[in-house]
């Protein structure tokens, strides 16, 4: 980060990030028309984020496994055959003529194999080719490890969590404190550990995984650049981070573990989510800065209606998530909260404890958007609510009706984008076409 950046106010950073995102200068666009199309689409996003009325309602998609399915390749190919993956991404975006590009669930399967990830199963690792990757719920952090996590989160990840969840990194259990490198004689302890074959094997796996992942990044990057510069489709999600409660509840303690901790050791859990706030902020900023665009995707899981009481939501979930959002906003980023499940019972809590106006975007699944508009509309840009079941089992007519109704009820004043309620894993092409066409024709202001 430049000195200049460090001295900028949050508002200046925000404007600088958008300016970089909006800029078409010196970028290899196919034609001035394509560049203009790109610029208009980014401007549309910026306008809704700031609760203004743009030229049209932005049409955003969140797509997972449907990219592979539509292109007719297996989920296994999506993780192992990067050329096929890139073709599938191009075909999907171009055929549906999207406004903002999506990548689907392409992942570097070979790199994950080399590391020996245990937290997921995927086609090629315990699942057949036609099935998509899925997480395996377990206690990957033990109930008595909170103190270690709180004292030194990165050390805990390096020496405890990573060796546990990646077979090839088992030897890293033996890594000593890194602080010895302050002095040559003290560094001997670190060097001594580096002579151990199991430790070396961990570093070798890390290097190999990097080499294997490079192939993936090259293919995905090429497809992404083609969509941006040939088709004027911006990639809208720059970074990725998580709510501190979900960090612990998803892949550390697991759902069961964290919910027992809410009763058995609430103070440790609260200290841990607090401790993870700066880390979650840093994770989002790093990714957004390297992508050069402000939106940071935050999928929300265990704070949804029914998962816990609103009292617990206000105690365990929202304060630290809010702190993460505020930290991102202070760095000029825009948290893009993907609210899976329902948040109907949380809206009052959010309304009582709002984020700065015009600095966050919210994509809702089952939450009533009319209520969202009423309760959060003065500070939150929002969208979503087109059920994934409608994409799969509905008709184009039903889709068109639903889209029109949403735009009529909540999309008249700007500050609104149209999007599915959740990530599309399956759909009928005619329904997705109807979604895009209707939104495009009906969503003009």
């Amino acid at each position, binding site marked *: 980060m430049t000195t200049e950046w460090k001295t900028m106010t949050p508002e200046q950073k925000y404007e600088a990030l958008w300016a970089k995102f909006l800029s078409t200068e010196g970028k290899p666009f196919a034609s001035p028309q394509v560049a203009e199309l790109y610029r208009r689409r980014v401007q549309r996003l910026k306008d809704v984020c700031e609760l203004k009325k743009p030229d049209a309602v932005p049409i955003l998609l969140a797509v997972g*496994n449907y990219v592979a399915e539509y292109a007719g390749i297996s989920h296994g190919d999506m993780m192992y055959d990067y050329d096929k993956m890139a073709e599938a991404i191009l075909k999907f975006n171009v055929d549906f003529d999207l406004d903002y590009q999506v990548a689907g669930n392409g992942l570097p399967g070979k790199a994950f194999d080399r590391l020996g990830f245990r937290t997921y*199963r995927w086609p090629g690792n315990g699942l057949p080719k036609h*099935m*998509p990757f*899925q997480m*395996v*719920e377990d206690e990957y952090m033990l109930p008595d490890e909170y103190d270690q996590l709180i004292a030194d989160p990165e050390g805990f990840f390096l020496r405890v969590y990573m060796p546990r969840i990646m077979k090839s990194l088992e030897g890293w259990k033996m890594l000593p404190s890194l602080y010895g490198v302050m002095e040559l004689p003290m560094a001997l302890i670190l060097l001594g550990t580096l002579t151990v074959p199991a430790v070396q094997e961990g570093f070798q796996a890390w290097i190999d995984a990097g080499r294997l992942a490079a192939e993936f990044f090259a293919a995905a990057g090429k497809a992404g650049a083609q969509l941006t510069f040939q088709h004027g489709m911006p990639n809208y999600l720059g970074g990725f981070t998580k709510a501190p409660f979900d960090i612990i509840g998803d892949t550390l303690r697991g*759902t*069961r573990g964290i*919910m*027992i901790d*809410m*009763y*058995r050791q609430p103070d440790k859990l609260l200290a841990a989510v607090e401790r993870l706030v700066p880390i979650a902020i840093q994770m989002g900023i790093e990714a957004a800065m390297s992508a050069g665009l402000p939106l940071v995707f935050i999928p929300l899981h265990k704070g949804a209606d*029914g*998962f*816990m*009481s609103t009292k*617990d939501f206000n105690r365990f979930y929202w304060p630290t998530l809010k702190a993460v959002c505020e930290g991102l906003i202070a760095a000029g980023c825009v948290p893009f909260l993907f609210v*899976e*499940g329902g948040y109907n019972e949380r809206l009052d809590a959010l309304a009582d404890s709002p984020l700065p106006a015009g600095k966050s975007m919210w994509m809702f699944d089952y939450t009533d958007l009319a209520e969202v508009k009423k309760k959060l509309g003065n500070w939150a840009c929002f969208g979503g609510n087109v*059920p*994934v*079941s*409608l994409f*799969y*089992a*509905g008709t184009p007519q039903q889709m068109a009706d639903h889209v029109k109704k949403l735009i009529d009820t909540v999309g008249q004043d700007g500050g609104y984008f149209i999007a599915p309620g*959740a990530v*599309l*894993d*399956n759909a009928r092409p005619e329904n997705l076409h109807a979604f895009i066409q209707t939104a495009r024709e009906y969503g003009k202001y």
Partner: protein
Amino acid sequence: MAQELVQAIADLNEKEAVALTRSLLEKGVSPLEVLDDCRAAMQIVGERFESKQAFIPELIFAGEILKQITEIVKPYLQREATAGKKLGKVVIGTVQGDIHDIGKNIVVFMLEINGFDVTDLGVDVPAERFVQAVKENGAGIVGLSGFLTVAYEPMKQTVQALRSAVPEVKIMIGGGPINEQIREYTGADAWGKNAVDAVVIAKQWVGA
């Protein structure tokens, strides 16, 4: 009935519940009576869940307390407690291709405390295993769970397989992406948004 113990479990006072269990047993109270208290307490937790006074953490933690008490009671048990009268048999599982089980486990918990005899087939369950299980134990109700939209197709296939092999069985479906549209698509008899719905539907079907 030891009202104190029922209250301690229902209010999720783990230490008190465990201590009370120990002292009751040491005083010579029958282990079966302690288990009855557990059932009564779970009933209360279930009712609180239904009325949205309790949520998933409360269900999970209640289950955790129950597990501990069962461990303490075990050595005192001469013979297995005779199971109370059951409302009916339910076969349940997450359909093939989906390995999520949290929602399904909550449904199992709620059905069990409401008096159903539940056979849980686990996750990633092929249609044939549902058919086989129903044929083996004569269950009148099947519950199909799915968290991903990838579950739509296997759900539909499982419903079809059950319809042709055991036409009399009632089928309910549930999980994140399930709604009336998907019930119609899969041909199931009913769908539920949550575990409370599952209990209501199952009770309706057995006429309870």
